[in-house]
C-alpha cells in the first residue's frame, strides 16, 4: 500500500511538472509600440534650427509614396526657446531630399555656449528636449595619403588639438562636392577625448554610409574629388546618442557585435535626437 501511494505521488508530481506550461514572457507592462513621433533635430552655431519629425514604423510596414504621411509628421507645433526668446518653427519642403518636409526657425540661430529647448506638440502628446552648443573646435591640419594598392584612391587625415581642461565630444562629416547633396557623417564619426585628452591626435577619416542601402562601404576618397570636412563639437548627451546610433547602423545583422538595446535619446517621452553643433568646415582637393 505504501509503495502504491509513493507511485501515485510520483505520478501527480510528474503530471504537475508537465502541466507547468511556461508563463507568459511578457513580464513588462510596456508602452512600446509603433507610431511614435521621432525627432531628428539639430541647431548649428550660426545657422537656423532644423527639425525633421517622422513616425516610427511597425515591422510589417511597406512604405511607398501613397503612405507618405504615415511616415512624415507635418502637423506638429514645434517651438524653440533659447533662454531669451522663443520661436515657433515653420514647415518647409525641399526637393530631392529625404524626407522633403522639415521645420525650421526664421529668427533664432545657434550660438556657441547657449542652451536650446525644443518642444513638439502633436495632438495630446508633448515632447521636450534640450541641447547645448559647445565652444568652437578647429582642425590644425588636413591632408591625404596614398592607398596601399589603388592609385586612384587616397585616405583622408586630419589633426586637431584637444583642450585638456574640458571633456570634449566631437562629430565629423564629409561631403563630396558635386556628388553628395549633404554632409555625411564619417564611419565612427562620434568620439570623445577620453583617448587623447589634451593631445593633438592624427585621425584617419573613413567615408560614411549615407543611407541603409549603401551595401558597399568604401573608406577612401577618389583622386580629383573636392571634399568638405566639417568638424563639430557636441554635448555629452548627443555624443552618447550618436555613438550608439553608429553601432546600430554598422553592426545590425552581425551576430558578433549586434547592438540590441535602444539608443540613448535626449528627447523626453520620445525617441530621436535634438543636437547642438559648433562646427567649422574645411575643404581639400584629393590629389
Amino acid at each position, binding site marked *: 500500500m505504501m509503495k502504491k501511494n509513493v507511485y501515485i505521488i510520483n505520478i501527480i508530481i510528474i503530471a504537475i511538472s508537465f502541466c507547468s506550461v511556461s508563463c507568459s*514572457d511578457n513580464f513588462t507592462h510596456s508602452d512600446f*509600440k509603433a507610431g511614435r513621433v521621432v525627432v531628428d533635430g539639430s541647431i548649428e552655431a550660426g545657422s537656423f534650427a532644423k527639425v525633421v519629425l517622422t513616425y516610427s514604423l511597425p515591422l510589417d510596414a511597406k512604405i511607398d509614396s501613397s503612405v507618405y504621411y504615415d511616415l512624415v509628421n507635418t502637423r506638429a507645433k514645434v517651438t524653440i526657446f533659447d533662454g531669451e526668446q522663443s520661436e515657433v518653427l515653420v514647415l518647409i519642403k525641399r526637393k530631392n531630399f529625404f524626407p522633403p518636409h522639415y521645420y525650421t526657425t526664421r529668427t533664432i540661430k545657434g550660438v556657441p555656449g547657449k542652451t536650446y529647448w525644443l518642444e513638439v506638440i502633436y495632438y495630446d502628446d508633448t515632447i521636450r528636449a534640450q541641447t547645448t552648443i559647445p565652444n568652437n573646435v578647429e582642425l590644425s591640419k588636413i591632408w591625404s595619403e596614398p592607398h596601399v594598392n589603388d592609385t586612384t584612391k587616397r585616405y583622408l587625415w586630419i589633426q586637431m588639438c584637444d583642450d585638456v581642461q574640458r571633456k570634449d565630444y566631437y562629430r565629423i562629416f564629409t561631403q563630396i562636392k558635386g556628388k553628395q547633396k549633404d554632409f555625411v557623417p564619417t564611419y565612427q564619426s562620434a568620439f570623445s577625448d577620453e583617448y587623447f585628452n589634451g593631445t593633438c591626435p592624427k585621425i584617419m577619416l573613413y567615408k560614411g554610409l549615407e543611407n541603409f542601402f549603401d551595401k558597399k562601404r*568604401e*573608406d577612401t576618397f577618389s583622386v580629383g574629388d573636392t571634399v568638405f570636412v566639417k568638424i563639430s563639437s557636441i554635448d555629452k548627451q548627443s555624443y552618447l546618442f550618436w555613438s550608439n546610433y553608429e553601432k546600430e547602423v554598422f553592426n545590425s545583422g552581425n551576430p*558578433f557585435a549586434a547592438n540590441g538595446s535602444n539608443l540613448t535619446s535626449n528627447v523626453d517621452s520620445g525617441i530621436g535626437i535634438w543636437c547642438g553643433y559648433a562646427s567649422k568646415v574645411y575643404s581639400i582637393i584629393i590629389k
Partner: protein
Amino acid sequence: MKYSFTLIFLILSISVWAQQTCSIKIFVKQQNQQVLSGAQIYAQKSHVSFITNEKGFALCVIPCKPDTLLISYIGYKDVYVALPMISDTIIHVIMSIEEIGINKVVVTQVKENSQITNTLGELQVKHSELRSIPGIMGEPDVLRTLSLSSGVKQIEGMQGIFVRGGSQDQNLIVYDGATVYNPSHLLGFFSVFNSDIVASASLFSSGAPALYGGRLSSVLTIQSLSAIPDSVETAVNLGVLSSRVMLNVPISQKSAIRASFRKTYLNLFVMPIVEKSLELKDEVSTQFGFYDATCRFDFKPNLLHQFYISAYLGKDKFGLLNSQTLLTNNVNWGNFIVAAQWKYNAKNRWIHSITASYSEYNFNFLAKQSVYTLGIETGISKKEIQYTAKKRYENHTVSYGVQANFHMYNSGTIDVTIENEPFNSIPAMLSQSSEQSLFVEDEWFITPQLICNASIRIVPYVLLGPSSYYVYNDKGEVTDTVFYTQNQIMYTTIGFEPRLQLQYRFSSDASLKFSSMRTTQQMHMVSMLSAALPADIWLPASNFNKPMNGWISSVGYFRNFNDNEFSSSLSLYYKSMQNIIEFKDGFITLYASSYNQKITHGKGFAFGSEFVIKKIKGDFQGAFSYNFSRSLRCFQDLNQGYLYPASYDKPHDVSIQLQYKISSQLTCNALWVYNSGKVYSEPVSKYFIGKNVISEYGPINSSRMPAYHRLDIGAQYVIAKTDSYELLSNISIYNVYNRKNTYYIYYETIGNVNEFSIQFVKNFVGLFPILPSVSIQLYF
C-alpha cells in the same frame, strides 16, 4: 531465580542490541594496486549496498548476522566474502579483470544505484559514458554528455554551461585541482577537456562538498586518468575535422607520465559552412582552429602517499579578413593551468591532502585597418594553495580544510597605435584580490537510512591596490580620482556559507534527498560583445560591485527498479542570486576605468523541476529526461525595472538518448534534443534618423526564437582487436534532418529612400547544418 533470568535476558538483549550492526571497512583495489572507485558491495541477505569512494574505500554498516558480501565491478570478476561478525574489521579486496587483453582502463558507466546514495544534485560521468552519445565531428565530449542531464544546459553558439539558471561564470570548474575559467572551444561545441584523458567528471548543481566554493551555481570537478600502466599505452584518433594523440609511459612501477595533444583543422570544411550559415558577405572570410595539450606525472611510492603534477594548455584562434575594407581581426583566447597534489593516508586514518595550483585565462583581440591597430587584452589568473583533511569514524565522516588564493585581474588593457606609434593615454585596468576560506564538514549516519551532511565555509576576502577609480558627480562628470597604492586594502568582506543536506534511504533502491546551501562569489564576469566570441571581462568584487550571494535549495526523490535496471528521479529546485551585474547598454566602450559608470546591479532567481528515467543495463540502454525551468532577472536600470528572462532561459528541455550494442563489434547510438528557443529582444518598430533605419527594441528578451531540436546518430565499429592493439572507427552525423535551428535573428531594410520604397524583412540565421564525420582510433 527470576531476577537471574531477567539479568541474563538483559545481558543477552544488550549484547544483541550492541551487535545489531557491524562496521566493516572494505578497501577495493585492482591487481596493480590501483584503487577501484565505484565498486559495489552488496550484502545478499540484508539487501544493503555500498559503493567505494574515490579512494576505493567503503565503510559498511551492516546488520550483524551471517551474510555474504558480493563485491562487483563490471569488467572484473565478482568476489564473494563472508561477512565477519566482528565490528571494525578491515577487508582488502583485490579484483581481477574479467577479460585479459589490452591493459587499458575500461570503466563502466556510473555504479548502478549511485543516484540513490549520491549527494542531491550530483551528476557523475565516467570515461566510457563519453562514447554513449554521438560525438560532434567524431569528438566525444564531457560537457556535452553532462548537458543531457537534468539542470545543465549548453546553448549552441555560447561558451560554457548553464546550470539551474545560473550564468557561465557562476560554475566553479576544477581540473585536477586547478580552476578553469573558460571550459569551451569553438563557440561551445567542444570543451577544453580531451575525452581520452578524462577519468571522471562530477557536477554538483546543489549540495556541493564544502571543500569547494567561490561560485554561485555549481561545481564541476574533472579528474584526468591517473593509472600507472604496466607498459606504454598509446591512443591515436584521426578524424576529418580533428585529431588527437595520447601517450602513457610508465617510468617505474610507481610512477608514470602521460601526455596528450589535440588539434582541429576546421578551415577545410566547417568554416565555409559557418560563413554561409551566418550569411557573411562575400568579401569576408574567416578562419578558426584550436589546440590543447595536457601532461600529467603520477608518483605512488606506497599505499600511504600519492603525488601528481598535472598541466593543461589550450588556445583558440579566430581570424577575419574583409578584403574590401582591408580590415583584419585576429582573436585568440585560452587557458593555462598547472596543479600539484600530495595525498597522505595517515595511520590514524586521517587522509591529508595539499594542493597547489596556478590558473590563467587570457583573451586577446587585434584589429588592423590601414595604419590603425587596436589591441584589447583581458584576463584573469589565480594562485592557490589548499589543505584538507578527512577521517571516517563509525557514523561520522569529518573533514576540514583551509584555502588561500590570490587573483590578478586584467579587466581591459588597450593598445592603440597609429602608424606604429603608440597611443599611450589609456591605462590598463589591473587589480588583485586575496581570498581565504575555512571549512568544516560532517557527514553523519544518524541511522543506516538517515544521513545528514552539515558544513560551514567562512570566506574572508580583500581587494588590494594598486588601482584607481573615478568619482562622479550627479551629472556623471568625473570630479576626482582615488588612488590606492600597492597592497593597500580597497575593500574587504567575509562570506558565510552554511550548507545542509539530508538523505533518507527507504531501501537500497529508493531515497529522498533535501539540500540547502548559501553560496557567495567574489568576482563578476560581463561580456563585451553580444554573442559568440568569449570577450569576457572578469572584475573583482569591490565597493561598487559587491560580492554575489545566493541560496540554492532542492528536494528530490530517486527510485531504481528491477534490480537497478531502470533508474528514475524527480527533483525540484529554487535558486536566488543577489548583486549580479550587467552592462547597461550592452556593448560597452573600451575605456576600462569607466566600467563602474556603465554597470548596473540587480538580482535573479531560478526554479525548475527535473525528471529523468534511464535504462542502464543490458545491450539496449537509454534515457529520457524532461526539465521545466525558468531563470529570471530584475534590474532597476534595465527593462524599466521589470522582470525579464535571462538570455539562457529555456523553459522546456527534453532529451532522448538511445544506445544499442548490436554485437561485440558494433554499437549504435542516437540522441534527440528539444528545447525552447533562445530569448532575444525583438524590435517593436523602426524609425529613420537621416537616411538610416534604427530599431526601437521592446522589453528585454521578450521574444523567443523558434524551438530548437535536432537528431544526432552515431556508430562505433571495432575493426580489429587483439592482445596488443585495438582499432576502432566512429561515424557520426550531427543534425541528421538538417534542421536550421535559429542562432540569430535580425531585420533587414530593403528598398531605396530616394525612391520612397522601404520594407523590413526578418531574417533567421542558423549555425550548423547537417555535419557528418568519421574518425579512426587506434589503441596500442
